[in-house]
């Protein structure tokens, strides 16, 4: 029994999804896709890559892509963790509307902006916890559990705004939506900070591994002694918090809370961003930064279609094309075809 047979040297083929070097990371399909979309944008609009410094902040189409991508990127950060547990959160768009409505209503009523922001974030957290409770304690399928708040949430937001668009002139909220930090638009700075913080949190603690374990096999996770209920509660609460932050940005951007349209359908963009980023809807392996890249690809496409002069409706068709391509590439059929081709190549 002394044969040491496990080989601890690095394998020839890196099997895990985590690449060893920066160069390997950059040849991932997501980065190639992003580069392609940006290149097409540049061909359509030669000034696409020019960035100028003006009034203490950066301006340019590229910065605009980052800025516009921020709300979906922030949603995608929370959504990544949820999807990694084999769940999904359809309510984040509605939670954005609620958070924006709460903040707007409070500043209009004369509350200090700091308190309004804190209240909006707390409401997002509570919404997330609600989803978490439905999913864990009541064991409802995530897609149905979060559908409840997706529908009801917009109603709640309308109750808060009493059916009208609540406009405000509060400088703090406006700063969140349109200000700048160290030359970057505030939404971009927030998204960067949140992405870095969340990625560090899940990888420096055991949370990332435990989330993946629950997503891969919840029953085995239970047998291994993982308390998956607490983990799921945290994950859904975090998605709610991200949605609230996103809601504050969108409200600040238009200087008002629109309960009907704020965050409308953005949950779908967030899910798409996560899937483009390579996290499977079947749960398991996830990467928060790659989901943010996914959000950037989506926004770069949107911007490209706008500057190319096509009508915005075209946007939806292109997006659905991308979804279909990705789903086909992720399907078991594609996997088996790829495997067959690899085996054939191995034989010849």
């Amino acid at each position, binding site marked *: *029994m002394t*044969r*040491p*047979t*496990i*080989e*601890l040297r*690095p*394998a020839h083929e*890196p*099997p*895990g999804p985590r690449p060893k070097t920066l160069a390997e990371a950059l040849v991932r399909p997501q980065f190639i896709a992003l580069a392609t979309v940006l290149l097409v944008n540049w061909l359509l609009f030669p000034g696409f890559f020019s960035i100028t410094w003006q009034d203490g902040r950066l301006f340019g189409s590229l910065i605009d892509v980052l800025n516009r991508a921020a709300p979906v990127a922030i949603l995608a950060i929370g959504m990544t963790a949820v999807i990694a547990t084999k769940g999904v959160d359809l309510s984040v768009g509605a939670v954005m509307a609620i958070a924006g409505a709460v903040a707007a209503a409070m500043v209009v009523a004369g509350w200090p902006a700091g308190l309004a922001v804190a209240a909006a974030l707390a409401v997002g957290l509570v919404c997330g916890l609600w989803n978490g409770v439905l999913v864990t304690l009541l064991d409802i399928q995530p897609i149905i559990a979060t559908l409840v708040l997706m529908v009801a949430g917009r109603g709640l937001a309308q109750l808060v705004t009493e059916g009208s668009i609540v406009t405000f002139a509060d400088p703090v909220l406006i700063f969140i939506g349109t200000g700048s930090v160290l030359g970057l638009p505030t939404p971009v700075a927030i998204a960067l900070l949140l992405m870095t913080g969340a990625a560090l949190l899940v990888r*420096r*603690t*055991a*949370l990332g*591994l*435990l989330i*993946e*374990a629950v997503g*891969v*096999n919840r*029953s*085995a*996770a*239970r*047998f*291994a*002694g*993982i*308390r998956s209920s607490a*983990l799921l509660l945290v994950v859904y609460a975090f998605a709610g918090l991200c949605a609230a932050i996103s809601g504050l940005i969108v409200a600040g951007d238009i200087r008002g809370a629109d309960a009907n349209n704020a965050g409308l359908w953005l949950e779908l963009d967030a899910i798409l961003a996560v899937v483009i980023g390579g996290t499977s809807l079947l749960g*398991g*392996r996830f990467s928060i930064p790659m989901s943010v890249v996914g959000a950037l690809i989506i926004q770069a496409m949107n911007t490209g279609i706008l500057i190319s002069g096509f009508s915005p409706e075209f946007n939806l068709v292109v997006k659905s094309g991308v979804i279909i391509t990705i789903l086909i590439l992720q399907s078991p059929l594609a996997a088996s075809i790829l495997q067959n081709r690899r085996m054939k190549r191995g034989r010849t």
Partner: protein
Amino acid sequence: MQAAEGRPVLEARGIVKIFGQHTALGGVDFELKPGEVHALLGENGAGKSTLIKILTGAYQPDHGEMLLDGVPVSFRDPLQAQGHGIGTVYQEVNLLPNRSVAENLFLGRQPTRFGLIRRREIEARARRLLADYGLEIDVRADLSDYSVAVQQIVAIARAVELSGKVLVLDEPTASLDRNEVERLFDVVRKLKARGLGIVFITHFLGQVFELCDRVTILRNGRKIATQSLQGLSATDVVRMMLGKDVAFDHHPTGVADARRGAARVTFRNLGRKGSVAPVTLSVHEGEVVGVAGLLGSGRTEVARLMFGVDAADSGEILVDGTPVTIRNPAQAVAAGFGFCPEDRKIDGIFGELSVRENIIIALQAKLGWFRALNREDQVELAGRHAEALDIRAASPDMPVKLLSGGNQQKVILARWLAIDPSFLILDEPTRGIDVGAHAEIVRTINRLREDGLALFAISSELEEVVAYSNRVVVMRDREMVAELSGAAVAPDAIVQAIAETPAPEAQP
């Protein structure tokens, strides 16, 4: 017991079925005569259900041939098998509970006129049909209004109507009470008299002797025997089901009694209503307590109670003399328990995660969210345990799902050894593992025992239980019925204890 003579109605020769690296059936012959009830017996993983699925067209065999009335046949799917006369009724009735009995009987072949279903005609025919089975019920009522027994009979009536040569009953009595079983048996006897060949699968040995003419016993994908039940005793059958597959080189009895240390864990009256009658048991340091019993005897249920997978509703658990609360697996892991579950794929491995992550996951769960094992610790831990257990993986970073069954089982063992457990539960540790790895796992269990671990090991293979157990507890009918130790830990004594009452010895 008048097994009809003559040509078999259904015959399978040299059936081979391989799933990945696992040979589910390795050249099995099976023969069913018209007018006989033929029991198919075997423990989980013996290949029963694979054979049934091949006979009924749900799977296609990799090798071998099937003859129906002497003519070679091969079935694309169950529908085609049905067309050829082979019908199946499963444990869970798979009809439509929210449609009427009559509709269920004639679903898919309703008599119509001008494209409209002739309801009265259906109902009249359903009544006539069920009368043959001694069933006089309102055929217009929903199927779900009736007991499982009646639903079973409806399912049988439908299967016989559609097929008419061969009827496969897959554990039809699992959820029936005594009277219902009698009623079902009457139906089966009638069908037998009509000349149908009937395959009967059950875990209740008593029912086999009561109803069946012949028995085929499978073990580890091989046919052990096909015999007339006349002159065969329950003990013989149990021995064939649980018998010897691998020769093990080590037997701890005698040596180990002297080495036995203090009581590591004690379970007092641990039980759960409807699951297991209260069990009292101590497991000592350096001791393996083996568990023997047939499938459904409550052996897995005991293990689940011990580990908090199911919450016990009576009794207490002491670790090193101190009471502990175990209501869920997380608490069990905190108390230093480990559990290698019976179904590795569903409850054990994280297929997409790496070998390394699979090994460290229980320790990480025990440490909590914020005391993360860093990469170096993980590599060191996984490497050490992989080496100790001789896990063969090309790389510790490869997904564990790519490993063979034996190596996956060792990964789960390594996972528990990594938490430095005080008590380890093994439920069928060698299920679905090839012969070489099988012997190796048995050796490993012996080594862990020598290292002072307290183990509780469930196995349906008697030779295996004997090879590593100091003591053996025997489960029957969800109750601990015997405890054997010392020289009594021997296959024959265990078979005796298992077979004692459930089946009356086949007396003339």
